[in-house]
């Protein structure tokens, strides 16, 4: 029997996985710039992030199309089929994470060129962002190494982001009566919410890792049926 048949197909699938997961690096870079734009109220940088989202969308389209072609021409089954199914999900997550960075960058110009109104709140947003970047890189590594335990740990890491998000909310409520400051705090709440969603997308990628490995899809946490 000929061992290691279908090498070209296997190589193509490996490349598509690398390319799809590479989308997470693009997201991580976009998030770093987004945080910098928030920290310095840098409208130009925010606009660059918005424009650059085309690269993430382009990656989505390119890998998605190639995966569909593999499905149509190579009849993948078993682990290959689960991997392709998972990658299609991951691509959607990557695309959504990119869009959340765009959402943040689109609200930055609303409050003009004034420096951030509250240092503590900016610190919280930056901490959320840093933690979310950790989630993104951990999700990528868990997928590449098919490490279900590492994937499950994303839930714990995401709890940190959620706690910071709630802290942001409390700060915004107590921000005071100044109208400009309140408006800025509102935009920061939107930013915090967007970062929190990026974290959720990272957890979703972790669930796809478990699917690839076990063949069973289970949400790590069910928002509509939370455990105590």
């Amino acid at each position: 029997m000929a061992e290691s048949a279908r090498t070209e197909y296997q190589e193509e699938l490996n490349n598509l996985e690398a390319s799809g997961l590479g989308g997470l690096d693009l997201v991580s870079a976009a998030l770093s710039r987004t945080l910098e734009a928030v920290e310095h109220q840098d409208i130009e940088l925010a606009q660059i992030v918005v424009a650059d989202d085309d690269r993430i969308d382009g990656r989505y389209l390119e890998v998605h199309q190639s995966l569909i072609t593999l499905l149509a021409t190579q009849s993948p089954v078993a682990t290959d089929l689960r991997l392709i199914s998972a990658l299609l999900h991951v691509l959607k997550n990557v695309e959504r994470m990119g869009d959340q960075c765009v959402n943040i960058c689109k609200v930055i110009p609303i409050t003009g060129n004034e420096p951030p109104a509250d240092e503590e709140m900016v610190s919280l947003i930056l901490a959320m962002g840093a933690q979310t970047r950790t989630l993104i890189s951990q999700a990528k590594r868990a997928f590449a190494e098919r490490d279900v335990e590492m994937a499950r740990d994303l839930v714990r890491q995401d709890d940190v982001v959620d706690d910071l998000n709630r802290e942001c909310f409390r700060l915004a409520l107590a921000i005071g009566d100044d109208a400009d400051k309140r408006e800025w705090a509102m935009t920061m709440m939107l930013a915090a919410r967007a970062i929190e969603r990026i974290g959720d997308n990272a957890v979703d990628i972790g669930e796809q890792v478990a699917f690839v490995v076990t063949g069973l899809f289970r949400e790590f946490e069910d928002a509509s049926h939370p455990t105590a």
Partner: protein
Amino acid sequence: MLGAAGTKRTAAEAGQVETTGGAVTGTSSGVAELPIGRGAKTIEARNVSLYYGDFQAVEDVTMKIEPNKVTALIGSSGCGKTTFLRALNRMHELTPGATVEGEIRLDGEDVYGAGVDPVQVRRLVGMVFQSPNPFPTMSIYENVAAGLNLNAGRMKKTEKDGVVERSLRGANLWEEVKDRLDKPGSGLSGGQQQRLCIARAIAVEPEVLLMDEPCSALDPVATLAIEDLIRELKDRYTIAIVTHNMQQAARASDLTAFFNLEKTGRPGRLVEIGPTETIFTKPEQQATEDYVSGRFG
């Protein structure tokens, strides 16, 4: 008792099958009702080993082929799947020097038991082969009736007409050939010839249908027509199909059994049997995964 399972049935039995027969009803007027199939049966192989002289082709296979389901047997060439299939209706022993160890039971009855007539076994467990093989000098009608002549020699012409029509309908061929039943079967297309062979197989009212790569000589359209037919036939029969076409196994079967051999010259073994969906999404054995993914074989 298998050997005593004759061709005569009571009216009550006939009526009972008639109500569940579906596609076999609605025949020409004045034809005696002879329902096709009397209920699919389970085939169970226990520790089956098969030999050609000194050469062991299959080693220690234990598996169940369930009624009203399609079981696909897959595996690379030489893994023993066809040999195993042929042992199920005692065709294996037709090869000189071929022997069988272990048990094969049809609804509990040992098909290799003392006193069991192999011809009777082959009537209850029909076989459709790789290449369509209608009898070349016989008409379409005679091809379908060939098995009846062997098994029920004194059947009246009107009864035979009914069985031929029902069998051709059962094989989704009636509408295409009803106006040329007296023409040679060899004049049909490949796909039609294979359906003619299926009609011939079901004319003698088997309980199990074995198919050995029934579509390997057919074009994709004829292949899909046979697969549709297989899906219909499973309502009435137990079906086992050997196929090299992985996608066919995925499309047409409910259960898939993967056979493999360690290396050339070694006997084939059953590696894994399970729901087709499981075999093609999350098989238990790495060897199965490698085979269905096309990484070897």
